[in-house]
């Protein structure tokens, strides 16, 4: 047994260690996910003006500050009792605001954070065994996805064409956000009862222009099917099977054209999404398309026991068709992306927030009461440095992240969970196909395909929000009664790009914050074991995966565990989010903390 640890796992937000035990065949037999930082964040909100939360919680994460701002604003709408009155146009502005951030965050993840792993020299070595075809595929991978300041065998590798082209697009999206939110990151516009900025007609024209420029990037780099055709045949397909068939047929056309000439370039029709859709998966690439090899990303990062995993979505983006107001406690049916629990066997269930508990059995906290619902939990952090020890193994405490559970089950959150909960045809179809053929429905490939597909879907919706749904002459806020916060509570359920995000607030008799809590996506995904010893999603998905490229085809090399990189990053981890701390009940103050 060999211990392989990736620490830090870079190109994520924050500091994460992925620690694995690997057998002689290069298969991971055990794993631990450790968040390496303790920030002490939400404690600063206590005894303060509740409204500050919408701006200060944005500082939990500089990559997706808007999700925190809006989850917090939802909780504040609830706290002040104005959720049912928030003007429709404020809700549309919030949708635009979040939509732009989700697209920017996904683009950053796909191109800047995740993509560079495709330029790992391990792939060159594997693909070289396939002669001209393999070499051509490698040339595309390194040519598109190599990061900046990169060297292989002492030679500087030019930065990838897609990587370098994505940075200005990300910047452009941030500009569009700034236009309606002052700046990005750290925007100023979420506010209970509405939104601080009423976009005018000129802004709408500019937003449309930003949108069109980003679409130019999408059609040049990402997706070479006309955007409308892709939407019509996948997202709006009449069945999951039809959506998958459309994509497979499209890819088949490309493969037929390219295999003889070994031309997988953009000019030959291979956008980055097509390239990954075909070569990323064994089932799609090798079995269905007849490619000579694939990256086999569908065989890593899966779950072996469907009874120990579920997919959770709180639901994101307001349905604004019903006019003003929304129901802060019941996202189901009230959101464009609905809430739901999808079991490990892909069965849909309604979401009930009362079923969430958290465990600190393997986190650096003392625990006197066992697993509790977050609103009544307690957390007592270690302040003795000697007890903060990451090396004790799976039976010890090894992280600052806690272990959230839904009815005792660890949940994956993020684009894949959202797409499954909303029954999106393409992603649902892929998940069903993998399930049927004996693969795990969730794997590195389906996670990345879900992220790509969600980007397209939100881009599609964004244009409607900007040009149809928003009325520049509409109302943008309603006044809030500050005294309404006294002895009140609020819950904000929302979706960050990385997954389900919940903020809970309560105020005391003085109207100031008594308690504040956020359970963030990476708390779910990067979760350690719970009191029953059940590993979190990342940990489960590592176990059983082969550590090297393409199923360890070239033998076992512990020193370049490419699969660990792919699996870890497929969740788009955000560790700063995962390790902010809060006090839950106030009963434990001043020396107890809660980490979520």
């Amino acid at each position, binding site marked *: 047994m060999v211990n392989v640890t990736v620490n830090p796992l870079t*190109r994520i937000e924050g500091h994460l260690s992925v620690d694995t035990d690997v057998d002689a065949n290069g298969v991971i037999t055990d794993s631990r996910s450790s968040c390496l*930082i303790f920030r002490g964040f939400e404690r600063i909100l206590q005894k303060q003006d509740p409204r500050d939360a919408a701006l200060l919680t944005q500082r939990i994460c500089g990559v997706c500050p808007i999700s925190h701002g809006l989850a917090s604003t939802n909780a504040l709408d609830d706290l002040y009792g104005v959720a049912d009155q928030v003007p429709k146009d404020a809700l549309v502005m919030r949708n635009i605001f979040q939509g732009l951030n989700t697209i920017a965050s996904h683009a950053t993840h796909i191109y800047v954070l995740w993509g560079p792993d495709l330029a790992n020299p391990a792939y060159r070595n594997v693909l070289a065994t396939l002669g001209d075809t393999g070499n051509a595929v490698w040339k595309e991978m390194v040519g598109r996805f190599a990061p900046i300041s990169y060297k292989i065998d002492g030679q500087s590798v030019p930065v990838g064409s897609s990587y370098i082209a994505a940075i200005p697009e990300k910047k452009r999206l941030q500009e569009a956000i700034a236009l309606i939110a002052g700046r990005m990151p750290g925007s*100023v516009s979420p506010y209970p009862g*509405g939104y601080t900025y009423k976009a005018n007609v000129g802004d709408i024209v500019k937003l449309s222009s930003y949108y069109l420029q980003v679409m130019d990037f999408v059609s040049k780099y990402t997706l070479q099917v006309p955007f409308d055709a892709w939407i019509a045949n996948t997202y709006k397909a009449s069945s999951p099977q039809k959506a998958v068939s459309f994509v497979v047929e499209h890819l088949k056309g490309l493969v037929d054209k390219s295999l003889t000439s070994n031309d997988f370039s953009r000019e030959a029709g291979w956008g980055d999404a097509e390239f990954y859709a075909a070569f990323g998966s064994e089932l799609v690439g090798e079995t269905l398309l007849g490619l000579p090899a694939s990256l086999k990303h569908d065989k890593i990062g899966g779950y072996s026991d469907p009874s120990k995993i579920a997919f959770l979505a709180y639901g994101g983006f307001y349905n604004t068709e019903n006019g003003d107001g929304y129901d802060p406690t019941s996202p189901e049916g009230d959101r464009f992306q609905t809430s739901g629990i999808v079991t490990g066997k892909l069965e849909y269930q309604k979401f009930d927030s009362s079923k969430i508990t958290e465990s600190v059995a393997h986190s650096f906290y003392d625990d006197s009461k066992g697993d509790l619902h977050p609103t009544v939990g307690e957390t007592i952090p270690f302040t003795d440095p000697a007890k903060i020890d990451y090396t004790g193994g799976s039976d010890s405490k090894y992280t600052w992240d806690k272990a959230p559970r839904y009815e005792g089950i660890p949940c994956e959150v993020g684009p894949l969970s959202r797409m499954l909960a909303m029954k999106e045809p393409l992603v649902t179809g892929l998940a069903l196909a993998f399930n049927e053929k004996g693969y795990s429905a969730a794997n590195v490939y389906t996670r990345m395909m879900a992220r790509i597909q969600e980007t397209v879907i939100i881009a599609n919706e964004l244009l409607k929000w900007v040009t149809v749904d928003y009325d520049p002459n509409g109302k943008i806020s309603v006044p809030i009664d500050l005294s309404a916060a006294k002895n009140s509570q609020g819950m904000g359920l929302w979706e960050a790009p990385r997954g389900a995000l919940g903020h809970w607030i309560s105020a005391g008799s003085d109207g100031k914050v008594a308690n504040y809590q956020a359970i963030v996506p990476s708390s779910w995904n990067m979760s350690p074991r719970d009191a029953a010893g059940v590993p979190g999603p990342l940990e489960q998905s590592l176990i059983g995966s082969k550590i090297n490229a393409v199923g360890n085809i070239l033998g076992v090399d512990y020193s370049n565990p490419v699969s660990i990189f792919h699996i870890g990053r497929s969740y788009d981890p955000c560790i700063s989010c995962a390790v902010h701390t809060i006090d839950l009940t106030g009963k434990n103050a001043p020396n107890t903390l809660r980490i979520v």
Partner: protein
Amino acid sequence: MSTGTKNLVHILDGVDFLKMDRRTFMKAVGLLGATVMLDSYKAEIVSALEFAETKLVWLHGSECTGCSESLLNGGNPDIVQALNKLNVNLAYHETLLAQQGIFVDGKLANTSELNSEILLEELIKEGNYILIVEGSIPNGPQGSGKYLMIGKKTFKEIIAEAAPNANAIIAVGSCAAYGGITSADSDIAKDTDYRGVAFAKENPKGGILQELGIDKPVINIPGCPAHPDWILLTLGAVILGKIKVPEDLPVLLDNYGRPKVFYPPDHTVHENCPRRGYYDRGEFDEQVGGEKCLWKLGCKAPYAHADCAIRKWNGSVSFCTQAGGPCIACVEPGFPDTSRPLYVEAEDKGVLLGANIDTVSKVAIGAAAVVAGVHAVRRIKGE
């Protein structure tokens, strides 16, 4: 910006920043103080001159990656231009680099081409780099620094290794500069004991360097996040030799280690706020979503020493008050404590906002004038 300064900018309009001898440059910057000096010449900064390669080692402490995100939003120069034109080798940056730490049975594996831990060790050993720190540094618990570990070291240890060999140190963002949001007042602040690189909030001797006994000059680029221009133009000026470290720093930096050119001591965001006309007429918004002065919604622009209102953000499309959000003075050393409550007007908490009266007398005078101005407006309106 005062009229005098505006004239000076006008006079200097035709001057070639890059051709200016250093003495003239220093004199100009000293005189300008509150201006957009570097901004006026940013195109020249990226003009095609040949430079020796400059290595950057960018370390992430306790942070949200917001400053790196902001850096990627830079324009003229943008990050790619800056790296290419200034011949910068971004040798280590955790969010962008290809490598990661790889340990096999507890030992570092592979080479620096794949292993970030080996890469960082090699870079530190070679020295001759500019060290950029994003995020604060926990000294806790109990001075151990163990509230943040990276690889198998505490972040405090990593700073202790990286700082002595750096040619210059730049603390990017309010966390790295002053402790920022991680050091805000709370009942756990004493346990986490978060520090900036050189400062702890307003205390210029409270930083982690002092704790570690390292004496190195630090340029602070605060902001939550820092503006990409502030980062890239400071970096450009250092690389171009327009700012010599450490000899020029006493003239170029204010008492909080900030380049005066971006954080003018005699100028606040309020002065150039697009809503300023409403303030002068005594017209205030009391609910969000309007277009008038945000003073009554808690705007701290009169206390914020930064050029946001002129420079603006994200390709100059907007900035906080323009989009209806009160300025939260995120560039100030006491942020966020000195800005809270964010939506409550600041006059009733005293003009100094917890800052040191000796070191910020100018701020105090400016702020007092503002508050007096508000009262004057009220008197005029008969409120």
